[in-house]
């Protein structure tokens, strides 16, 4: 339960960041795909750089989580066809809605209720994937 509340608090922070950094802006996502602004590339680039530094420190210094647990960095098994084809489908949705899942939650929470339709449709899309999964290349 303590971990859940910690995650809730981290989520609050992330929701604020998504709106303030305009990652949750349809217009910013369009600018990115039109190569009109450096914003999103800079944001993702800095995010990856800080994440990679963290992972590197964890791996080389054997850093532990708060409370002393060893940090688990499990790698999901790669499925290259799924990552490419699923990634393309996701990218189409990202450009249409201007929002990946994190921003969808943040926008609904911000009171943009029509985005709840988009979020529920994303749940429906996830469910549809679960139905046809066996027939898709992975």
């Amino acid at each position, binding site marked *: 339960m303590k971990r859940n509340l910690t995650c809730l608090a981290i989520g609050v922070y992330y929701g604020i960041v998504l709106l303030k950094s305009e990652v949750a802006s349809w217009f910013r996502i369009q600018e990115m795909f039109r190569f009109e602004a450096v914003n999103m590339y800079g944001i993702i680039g800095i995010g990856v750089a800080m994440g990679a530094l963290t992972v590197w420190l964890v791996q080389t210094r054997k850093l532990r989580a708060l409370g002393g647990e060893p940090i688990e*960095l499990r790698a999901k098994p790669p499925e290259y066809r799924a990552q490419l084809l699923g990634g393309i*489908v996701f990218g189409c949705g990202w450009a249409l809605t201007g929002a990946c899942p994190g921003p969808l939650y943040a926008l609904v929470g911000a009171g943009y209720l029509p985005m709840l339709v988009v*979020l529920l449709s994303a749940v429906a899309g996830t469910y549809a994937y679960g139905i046809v999964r066996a027939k898709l290349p992975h």
Partner: protein
Amino acid sequence: MLPRILEFVRGPWPWWVGGIAIGVMVPLLLFMANRPFGISSTLRHVCAACLPSGPSFFRYEWRKDAWNLFLVAGVMLGGGIAQRWLIASGAPPMPLDLFSFDALATPRGWFFMVGGGFLVGFGSRWANGCTSGHAIMGLSLRRPASLVAVVGFFLGGLFVTWIVLPKVLP
């Protein structure tokens, strides 16, 4: 001093501030909660929780991943807090003629809201991750599969932006 800080917080942040703020998510989650950054799995957990007799893909112990659902509950809360107190401009972050309940009366509204959302959910699960799990966390872990996913994200996004949107938007 305080008014200047408030002004900075309430205005739009420069991109590098946003980048640092998002980059902090990886160490925050790893050190504070010992969990990898990822959002789209929650869409699967919602299916598993709401429709337990559905396809086998949704029959698993979703309660073990409750932390993930708490994370996105927080994201919703944070979105509300930002909107209420931390944003000076009232300009919506999306074109309202495409994303509104009125738009649902038109095929175009359905295409963007329902169609777009469906592709986000279907694609992120097929790729086994979204922007947070693959672009931020996966690339940080130097996973080749995540690089493939991110290339896919851009191929799809560029296709829609340059080929599809000019046909459906005036």
